[in-house]
């Protein structure tokens, strides 16, 4: 039996599905449902989510001694250069040099100190240094696009990089991801683990992207968008973006002090 590859669906089909989910979510919230602070795992406009989310409800885990602690990292796990993605090769990468900084906090607003922050991103042309990304945009021999650092005593992280380009993907016909940097964060508890994506302000691709719009709450979506901060920009050198991160989930210290 031979099968033809499915014809890619147009953007309009995805737009209509996103609008329907959005309207349902807004109505549910108006009728008293709590704000949806996280994306929906079941979000059909993002086609890859369909078979990759559980259909049964999550089970409350009592006595989570292990998960209320978490892995620790230290100075041996990072080098100074890991936080500067523009200095990992012999030459300078192409693109718009940026500094991205912010604080990692828990839900009580306390800084998450000495914890690991990892990032990865496409180059200025929107291409990843990954064999799986074969779309016709150039690789940059002077840019890999992966970095890491530890947060300081105020929970602050800082990376120097290049503004990533938007890139196409095959969720549907003419699907493009808004420019973003992938972030991975650890808190003091395994329950606070977070992998997410930081976006740039005023990206015209936001309304078309099912990954961004899988977060149905407008204010929650805005929490993924960094702020351009002119005071962070350096003359004749780089543009500055600020993005603070709040880790979800309880921790042992939170449980102990919260009583």
């Amino acid at each position, binding site marked *: 039996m031979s099968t033809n590859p499915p014809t890619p669906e147009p953007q309009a089909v995805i737009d209509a599905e996103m609008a329907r989910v959005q309207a349902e979510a807004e109505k549910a919230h108006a009728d008293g449902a709590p704000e949806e602070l*996280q994306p929906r795992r079941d979000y059909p406009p993002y086609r890859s989510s369909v078979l990759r989310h*559980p259909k049964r409800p999550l089970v409350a885990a009592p*006595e989570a001694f292990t998960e209320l602690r978490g892995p*620790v990292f230290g100075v041996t796990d990072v080098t100074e250069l890991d936080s500067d993605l523009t200095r990992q090769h012999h030459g300078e990468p192409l693109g718009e040099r940026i500094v991205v900084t912010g604080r990692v906090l828990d*839900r009580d607003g306390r800084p998450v100190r000495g914890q690991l922050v990892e990032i990865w991103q496409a180059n200025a042309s929107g291409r990843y240094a990954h064999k*799986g990304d074969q779309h016709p945009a150039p690789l940059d021999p002077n840019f890999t696009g*992966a970095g890491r650092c530890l947060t300081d005593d105020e929970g602050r992280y800082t990376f120097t990089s290049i503004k990533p380009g938007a890139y196409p993907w095959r969720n549907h016909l003419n699907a493009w991801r808004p420019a973003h940097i992938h972030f991975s964060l650890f808190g003091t508890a395994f329950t606070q683990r977070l*992998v997410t994506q930081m976006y740039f302000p005023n990206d015209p691709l936001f309304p078309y992207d099912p990954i961004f719009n899988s977060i149905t709450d407008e204010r929650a979506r805005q929490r993924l968008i960094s702020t351009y901060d002119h005071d962070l920009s350096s003359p004749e050198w780089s543009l500055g973006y600020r993005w603070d991160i709040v880790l979800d989930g309880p921790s042992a210290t939170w449980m102990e002090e919260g009583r």
Partner: protein
Amino acid sequence: MRPPTPSQTVGPFFGYALPFPGGGDLVPPGHPRAITVHGAVLDGAGQPIPDALLEFWQADPAGGLAGAPGSMRRDPVTGSFAGRSGVGFTGFGRVATDADGHWTLRTLPPGPAAPGALPYISVCVFARGLLHHLYTRVYLEDGAGDPLLDSLDPDRRATLIARPEQDGAYRFDIHLQGSEETVFLDFG
């Protein structure tokens, strides 16, 4: 309470950034007390997921949860990964699934995190297509008195118990969806 920063999928391209050499080897090869835990990550059609990332966090054999740095030691001379020192136990592992959706962890058996508690390895699951990570647990053996296991029906409970194999190996498949869907956890 501040509202949390929402999650987004790890996507398809984490492979050159997050996995690190020896990520699944919490103990050096040939360690006399090492156990091997392995399995597949599967989708709702029973197909293996070749672009999932699993993280493991566990107590040391005495039940200690202090952990230790050095899971992903960096070599400042070359900028490459230096590997774990082999001294001390970090309690943390990270493994990307292979083209068959399979993963392998070599570690020490966790001790009870509280007196009398059943030991387990905590697992955090990321994947392309998964918009918000999922937590589960690998219990190396079933037993009485675990409040989570005791809250589950027998067939659901069975999804959290690893199946012993030869030579200190345990099999633990993770089904994101379907009739054998793994129990995933909510910590409130």
